């Protein structure tokens, strides 16, 4: 066979093979299409779940502050309830409920129930008026409904205690002058004088907490000085007597200051006493509320959309910037937000340098071998340790050992009251820093090993030492990777709750850990945390129905804060990346 015919024959074979490609000869799995569907499906499922989570939180969290209309219902049993619809539900009423109804109505109710296979709709009204009814919510079934109205002048009153009040204004007294009768007139009076009353209350509160707190602080400081002198020189020594006199003097002057403040407060209380709003609830009971104790009131059924948005925004602002009240189920979450952000930032400041140093040693200095591998495995496993274990460690080590020793050494005068020997911001941050350490070390190591060998060699060839090379070449180049570690640590740290419950997060912290008193940052103080706040709202609240929407709203806020922290870090990383990793040949 000549070479030409060989070539021809092989070309023919190739052609034949290609022609055959029209029919499916390779198996479905070899083509890999089912795998495309499988992998795509897995991703789609993940996306749907995440979107579902976000949608649920948005759906439940966003309407929390929306002022809905107030309905007033009277039941066939004779009860009258007014409130906002908080929930709608379908259920199967028990027979004895129907038996309890008056005969005529029961028959009608039975008939309507039979039509719907024994099911009835019921609504949960937020009826408030806790001091009158002993409950915040009332279920009203459709079959027991006699009449439903939307009274024009019914007010929703948010106040400092006992939850909301729903009722029609009857009279208002301002500094002794009473306006009575027409709801419009009363409401106008209320709008005119409410702000002043609230302002007076704010001033009073300021005096009670800040000013009197200041006086107490001074006395406490003098007492501590005396105690210190006592510890150093013993009781009845000469310096002790001097300190004793000093304390007496200061207590004396503080007492005078205290009396002055007390009088001021009393005057304000007296001024507020004459300003009250009297409301009539749906069932005819009347209640008188002090103006200054009303946080917000609005005629729910008279509001235009713009006014509703106004109420919504005012509630949102209160939520973001105010302190909580009513066992956290009302008011704001500012201290919790502040605590979360501050703790997360302190944690980042602690964990990033620590993690980077550890990663540097592991990657740059340690001789690869069994020990280094073991350490690396241990670090990776640290990421899998349940977080509560870190909490227990933090409590046992930081609070009870380190903190107790710090107290012995520096704050012995305050003992037996612990300063650092209990949960606090510092220990919480340290515990979380420990928890997130592997999250920083692992990406940092990866970033370090991704720095091209050629760059290191170039630096060494210029006569740079190892440290100079690391400091000037390797670290800047690895910075975006280190930032990735930091982002992961922030996300992990901001969302962690379990260990915090042991090392310093509390239900209600009287003071922020950052204030205007030296040294401004108080790492020993307990703090509030959004994650813990959610847990507290959802599972520890007395008024759990009222707290439920707040749970979602707070969750939304926590997600928002974590996202904001991450976006910030990602933005910084993008900037660094542009600077340190341009187009590489």
């Amino acid at each position, binding site marked *: 066979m000549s070479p030409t015919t060989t070539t021809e024959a092989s070309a023919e074979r190739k052609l034949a093979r290609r022609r055959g490609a029209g029919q499916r000869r390779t198996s479905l799995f070899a083509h890999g299409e089912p795998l495309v569907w499988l992998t795509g499906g897995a991703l789609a499922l993940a996306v749907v779940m995440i979107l579902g989570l976000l949608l649920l939180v948005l759906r439940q969290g966003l309407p929390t502050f929306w002022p809905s209309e107030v309905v007033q219902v009277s039941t066939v049993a004779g009860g009258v309830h007014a409130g906002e619809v908080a929930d709608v539900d379908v259920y199967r009423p028990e027979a004895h409920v129907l038996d309890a109804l008056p005969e005529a109505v029961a028959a009608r109710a039975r008939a309507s129930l039979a039509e719907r296979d024994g099911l009835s709709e019921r609504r949960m009204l937020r009826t408030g008026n806790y001091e009158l009814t002993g409950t915040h919510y009332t279920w009203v079934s459709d079959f027991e409904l006699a009449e439903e109205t939307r009274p024009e002048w019914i007010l929703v009153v948010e106040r400092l205690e006992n939850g909301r009040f729903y009722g029609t204004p009857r009279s208002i007294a301002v500094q002794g002058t009473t306006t009575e009768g027409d709801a419009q007139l009363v409401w106008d009076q209320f709008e005119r004088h409410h702000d002043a009353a609230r302002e007076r209350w704010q001033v009073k509160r300021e005096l009670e907490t800040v000013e009197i707190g200041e006086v107490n602080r001074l006395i406490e400081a003098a007492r501590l000085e005396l105690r210190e002198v006592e510890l150093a020189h013993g009781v009845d020594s000469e310096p002790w007597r001097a300190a004793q006199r000093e304390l007496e003097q200061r207590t004396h002057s503080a007492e005078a200051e205290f009396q002055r403040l007390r009088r001021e407060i009393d005057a304000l209380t007296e001024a507020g006493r004459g300003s009250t709003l009297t409301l009539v609830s749906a069932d005819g009971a009347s209640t008188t509320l002090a103006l200054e104790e009303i946080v917000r009131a609005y005629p729910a059924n008279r509001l235009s959309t713009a006014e509703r948005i106004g109420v919504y925004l005012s509630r949102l602002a209160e939520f973001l910037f105010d302190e909580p009240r009513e066992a956290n189920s009302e008011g704001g979450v500012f201290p919790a937000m502040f605590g979360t952000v501050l703790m997360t930032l302190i944690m980042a400041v602690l964990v990033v340098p620590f993690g980077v140093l550890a990663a540097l040693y592991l990657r740059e200095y340690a001789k690869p071998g069994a020990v280094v591998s073991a350490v690396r495995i241990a670090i990776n496993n640290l990421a899998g340790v349940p977080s509560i274990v870190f909490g227990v460690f933090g409590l046992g080590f930081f609070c009870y050992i380190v903190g107790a020793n710090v107290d012995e050494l520096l704050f012995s005068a305050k003992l037996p009251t612990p300063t650092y020997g209990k949960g606090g911001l510092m220990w919480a941050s340290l515990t979380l820093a420990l928890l997130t350490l592997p999250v920083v070390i692992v990406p940092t190591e990866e970033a370090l090993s991704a720095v*091209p060998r*050629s*760059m290191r*060699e*170039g*630096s*060494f*060839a*210029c*006569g*740079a*030492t190892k440290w*100079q090379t690391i400091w*000037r*070449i390797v670290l*800047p*180049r690895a910075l975006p990777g280190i930032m990735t570690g930091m982002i992961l640590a922030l996300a992990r740290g901001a969302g962690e709750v379990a260990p915090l419950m042991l090392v310093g997060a509390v239900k209600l912290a009287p003071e922020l850990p950052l204030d205007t008193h030296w040294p401004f940052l108080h790492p020993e103080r307990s703090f509030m945390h959004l994650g813990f706040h959610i847990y507290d709202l959802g599972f520890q609240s007395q008024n759990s129905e009222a707290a439920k929407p707040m749970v979602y709203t707070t969750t939304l806020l926590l997600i928002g804060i974590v996202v904001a922290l991450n976006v910030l870090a990602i933005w910084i990383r993008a900037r660094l990346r542009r*600077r*340190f*990793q*341009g*187009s*590489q*040949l």
Partner: protein
Amino acid sequence: MIAQSRALALERATLAPGHSEPHARVPMTTANPLSGRVFEAIGRNQPFTPETHAALASEELVLEIERFDLWYGKSRALHAISMAVPRGKVTAMIGPSGCGKSTLLRSVNRMNDLIDSVRIAGEMRLNGDPIYAPGQDVIELRKRIGMVFQKPNPFPMSIFENVIYPLRIDGERDKHVLAGVCESSLRGAGLWDEVKDRLNDSALRLSGGQQQRLCIARAISAEPEVLLLDEPCSALDPIATGRIEDLIEELKGNYSILMVTHNMQQAARTSDYTAFMYLGRLVEYGPTDDIFLQPHLKETEDYISGRFG
């Protein structure tokens, strides 16, 4: 003129059809009795004396390599290399991949110290100072030697900071000194006009050829006694390569250059001396003209004319 005739000869040698008789056209002034049997000797691991041309004896030397051996773990990469690098000249090292050229180059500034498994024997001297003497400060030594790598490796910082990096790590703070060195180095590397308006831009945004010239500027900013170039053009396109070659031509005289290249034309065009290495041995070393036009060993001629390797 010389470069031209050299290139012509090379062209003749490499473009000639493989079957024709080369001996007829290239005159052989061979005196070495081993000629033609060198590879055989290497294969049998017999010792042999490399063919070093007499012209080198009259040169002033910047770097002396004496019976230098190097092992990577158990495998021996360099066999008793003895080589003298003349001052102010360009010396090229050629040879097939894996012959040890880069290893030898990296031994000069002790970059091989970074690899744990490397062992060495023998000595090198930079202007008389022993490079491998015990107690020799490697950091100080490297500051006396500039090096440019195969792949451009600018640092992740501005152009200015890249050029003055050797001064920075020396702790130089005087802004006037730094600016002066930056300008003169960039001028020296023929990059000044292209980057003078954007010295604070990231060096990583430069093109590949510019990056490599920047690396040269960085290497010469510390006024090195010898400049090592490790295949400086292998990652560049022909135009960038041409510019680097022109630059080498300009640097000649002021700097002593030792370069590794895979590109025979480049060695022929730019170098004064050429060393041919094979399997960790120095085979022939002499003036580039002689190596390319009348090599003493048949093996050298075969390699240059592209008959193997």
